[in-house]
């Protein structure tokens, strides 16, 4: 039972353009969401989070949008840079644990 789904295994974007990574969830009890970035041979790095009382949170080039009625969130990266190439994980907080999606590989081409 996959409660957090990232349906796009990979995404390729040109440098300078917008990257949009999507995430869907099934459990309406989730009230806090996070995005992590992971490079090979490193642990996940926290990027940005959003509480369910908000529908948008911005931090520099990164913006997360939450649509509670659709149980959908997205991460926008503008402008995309080659150093953004990594695996991006969406996660939902359930009690004390994080429930992760399977990840989306982002490739930013220069």
């Amino acid at each position, binding site marked *: 039972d996959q409660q*957090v789904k990232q349906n796009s295994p990979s995404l390729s974007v040109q440098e300078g353009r917008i990257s949009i990574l999507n995430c869907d969830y099934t459990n309406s009890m989730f009230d806090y969401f*996070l995005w*992590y970035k992971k490079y090979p*041979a*490193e*642990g*996940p*790095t*926290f990027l940005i*989070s959003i509480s369910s009382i908000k529908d948008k949170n911005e931090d520099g080039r990164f913006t997360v949008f939450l649509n509670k009625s659709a149980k959908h969130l997205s991460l926008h990266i503008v402008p995309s840079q080659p150093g953004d190439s990594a695996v991006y*994980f969406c*996660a939902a907080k359930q*009690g*004390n*644990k*994080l*429930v*992760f*999606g*399977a*990840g989306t590989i982002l490739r930013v081409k220069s």
Partner: protein
Amino acid sequence: DAGVTQSPTHLIKTRGQQVTLRCSPKSGHDTVSWYQQALGQGPQFIFQYYEEEERQRGNFPDRFSGHQFPNYSSELNVNALLLGDSALYLCASSLSGHTQYFGPGTRLTVL
């Protein structure tokens, strides 16, 4: 400011053996969580330790056990290793349930 550290980096064991993985949390953090990440999947929650007690546990068998020490560092023990236990084991630390910050992981291979 040191982040989350884990040891060892890599480990090779054979089926039936036991393994211990170690984690030191980020300075100022009091909570340690452990995750297992299989190839091509997202991390799966194993358990969380706070005040030296297991606070929450995921869907993992009793072969997986842990400990937290007074200095907040933690160990993950896995007994009777199976081939399916081969994975990247990630430790994350946080301050009283806030954002979790991950270490680089320990790559365990079971032959």
